[in-house]
C-alpha cells in the first residue's frame, strides 16, 4: 500500500497570552508529536474525546492551522513514484499553485454553519470549482448538476438556499462541495454528529459509496467509536494530543491493548438489553492540555498505573499486524481488565 499522507512529529501549540503586556506565558499543547501514516484508498478513523486534538490534526492537514513543528508529507501521484511534498510550512498560495489544495478537502461537523446562508446551492457547490478555475460557463453548471446527483439530490435543489433543507440534505450538499474538485483525500470532521440517528446512517452509507466510486481516502474524525466502525479500515485513538493506539478496526474492537481504548469502548452505552458488562469508569476529568501530565499522559486516570508510567513516556510500539500501542503494560492490559472488570464484550461474538 502506498502512503498518501504522512505526519511526522506534528505539533500544534496555541499560545496563551497573559500578564500586563499580553506576552505568551504558556501554550496549549493541542497536538504534541503525532506520527501517522495514511494509505491511499483507506479510511482511517481518528477517535478521541473533545479537546484531544483530533480536529486540530484534521485542520492542520488542510492547513487551516499552521503547525508549530513537524512535517505533513503529501504524496500526490497515483503510482507512488514521485517523492512527497512537505506541506506543513509552505505558503498557502504555493499550496494552491502546486495543485495540492484541490486534492485535500474537508467536510465540516455542522452543516448549518458550514454553508453560507446567503448563497444559493448552485453557487455553494460551484465555489471550489471557480476558485480553482476548473470549469466555467455551461460545463460548470453540468458539473454542479452531476455532483448533486452523485450525493442523491436532484435538479429541484439547484436554486435554493441552505435554510430550505434539512440537516441531512445540507450535509449532502457539503459533501458534494468537498468532492467537487476531484480530491484524493477527504477529512471528515464529525460529519454525522450534528445529525439525527435516522439520517446519520444515510450519510454514512453515502460516504462509503463515494469512497468506492471515486477512490477516495478518508480521515474520519469522530468521538463515537461505533459510528466509525462501519466505514473505517483502521482506527487511531488519541488522548491529550497524542496517539495512544492504532490498529485495524476489527483488532481495536476485539483486542484493544491500551487501557484508555478499553475505557472508551466500555463507555459507549450499547443498545442491547442482554448486553451486560461492567463499565470501566475512569476517575476524574481529562487533564488540561495546558499542563499535560508528565510521562504517560494517561497515568492520572489509568486504573493500572505503575511507577514507570509516571516517569517514562511510552512510545508507540508495533506489536504485530500493524497494531501499535503506547503503553508500558500493553502485554498484560487485557488480563488486567478481565480480572478487574470481568469479561469483555468483544470476546464473545454473540452480541
Amino acid at each position: 500500500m502506498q502512503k498518501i499522507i504522512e505526519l511526522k512529529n506534528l505539533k500544534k501549540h496555541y499560545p496563551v497570552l497573559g500578564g500586563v503586556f499580553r506576552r505568551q506565558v504558556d501554550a496549549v499543547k493541542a497536538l504534541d508529536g503525532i506520527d501517522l501514516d495514511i494509505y491511499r484508498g483507506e479510511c482511517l478513523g481518528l477517535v478521541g474525546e473533545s479537546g484531544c486534538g483530533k480536529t486540530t490534526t484534521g485542520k492542520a492537514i488542510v492547513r487551516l492551522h499552521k503547525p508549530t513543528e513537524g512535517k505533513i508529507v503529501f504524496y500526490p501521484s497515483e503510482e507512488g513514484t514521485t517523492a512527497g511534498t512537505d506541506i506543513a510550512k509552505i505558503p498557502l498560495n504555493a499550496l494552491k499553485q502546486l495543485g495540492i489544495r484541490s486534492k485535500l478537502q474537508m467536510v465540516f461537523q455542522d452543516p448549518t454553519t458550514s454553508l453560507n446562508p446567503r448563497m444559493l446551492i448552485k453557487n455553494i457547490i460551484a465555489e471550489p470549482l471557480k476558485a480553482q478555475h476548473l470549469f466555467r460557463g455551461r460545463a460548470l453548471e453540468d458539473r454542479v448538476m452531476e455532483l448533486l446527483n452523485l450525493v442523491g439530490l436532484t435538479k429541484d435543489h439547484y436554486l435554493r438556499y441552505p435554510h430550505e433543507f434539512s440537516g441531512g440534505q445540507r450535509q449532502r450538499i457539503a459533501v458534494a462541495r468537498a468532492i467537487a474538485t476531484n480530491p484524493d483525500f477527504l477529512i471528515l470532521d464529525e460529519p454525522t454528529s450534528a445529525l439525527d440517528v435516522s439520517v446519520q446512517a444515510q450519510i454514512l452509507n453515502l460516504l462509503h459509496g463515494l469512497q468506492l466510486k471515486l477512490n477516495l481516502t478518508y480521515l474520519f474524525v469522530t468521538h463515537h467509536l461505533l459510528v466509525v466502525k462501519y466505514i473505517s479500515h483502521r482506527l487511531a485513538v488519541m488522548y491529550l494530543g497524542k496517539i495512544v493506539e492504532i490498529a485495524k478496526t476489527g483488532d481495536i474492537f476485539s483486542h484493544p491493548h491500551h487501557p484508555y481504548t478499553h475505557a472508551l469502548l466500555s463507555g459507549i452505552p450499547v443498545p442491547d438489553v442482554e448486553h451486560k458488562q461492567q463499565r470501566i469508569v475512569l476517575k476524574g476529568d481529562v487533564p488540561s492540555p495546558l499542563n499535560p501530565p508528565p510521562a504517560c499522559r494517561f497515568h492520572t486516570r489509568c486504573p493500572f498505573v505503575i511507577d514507570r508510567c509516571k516517569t517514562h513516556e511510552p512510545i508507540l510500539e508495533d506489536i504485530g499486524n500493524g497494531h501499535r500501542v503506547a503503553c508500558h503494560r500493553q502485554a498484560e492490559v487485557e488480563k488486567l481488565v478481565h480480572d478487574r472488570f470481568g469479561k469483555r464484550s468483544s470476546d464473545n461474538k454473540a452480541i
Partner: protein
Amino acid sequence: MNKKQHPRIRELKFTLSRIFRNPSAIIGFSLLFVFVTVAVLAPYIAPPKYAHNPYLMPHKGYSQTPKPPSSKNIFGTTSGQYDIFYGAVWGTRTAFKIGMFVIGVALIIGVCLGIISGYYGGIIDEIIMRVVDIIFAVPLLVLTMAIVVAFGRGLDKVMIALALVKWRDYVRVMRSSILTLRELDYVQAARVMGVSNFTIMRKHILPNGIYPVLVMASMDIGSMVIVAAFMSFIGLGAPKGYADWGQMVALARNYIVGPVDDPLKYWHAIAIPGACIVLFVLAWNLIGDALRDAFDPKQRRR
C-alpha cells in the same frame, strides 16, 4: 411557496415581509417616502427665487419679527422675513445631503477598515483599533467642533468633519461581527477550497456581517442631521439665509417668547422647522428599529 420565482426574489420578498410586519417600519418608510418626494419635487413645490443658488431662502424685507402664516407665506416668515415654507422644503434636500454624505463616507471608511482589521488581525488590527480607541475618547460633537474650527465654518466643513469622526463607530461594529464570522465553518470551508482572501471577504464575510452596521447607519443618518443642525444653530454650519432647518431654528431663537399678552405668538417659527427635524430623524430611527428586529439572527428561521 412559488417555485417559479427566482430564489433571490423569493428571499427578498420574505425579508420585506419580515420588515413590514413591524408597524414602526410602515410609519418610518411612509415618512421617508414623503421626505424623498418633497426633496425630489422641491423645484416644483417651492420654485427658487435665485436661480444660481436655490438653497438661499427668499425674503421680503429685513424686519426682525417673525410673521404669522398668511396667504402669501403659508407657513409664515421667520426673523429676517425668510419664508418658512420655502426653507422647510429645500431644507429637506439639505438634510438628505448631510445624512447621506456623512454616513456614506463614514460607512466606506469604517467598513473597509473594519474588515481589514477583523479579517487579518495582528499588527494591522492593533494599529487601526488603537487609533479608533483614541478617537473614541473625545465626544463626537466636541471633536467635530474642533475640526470645524480648524477647517473654517460652513456646512460642507461640518459634513467633512462629521464624516472624519463618525467612521470610528462602524469600525468597531464591523470588526466585532467579522471576528465571529471569521471562525465560522463556511469561511473556513472557503479557505480549504482555496478561495482567495478577497473573494472570501466579498462573498462570505461582507454579506453576512454588514447588517448590524447597516442598522446602526440608518439610525445615525438621523443623529447626524441633529448634530449638523446644532452646528448650524450655533452658527458654525450653514451661512445665514441658507435653507437649513437648524439655521431656521436659530433665526427664531430670540422669539421663543412672544409679547407679554401672547407668549406663544411666534410658535410657528420654531415649531415648523423643529417638526421637520424631528420627523426626519424619527423616520430613520423607526426604520433602523424595524431593521434591527428584522435582521436579528436569533429570529431568523432555523
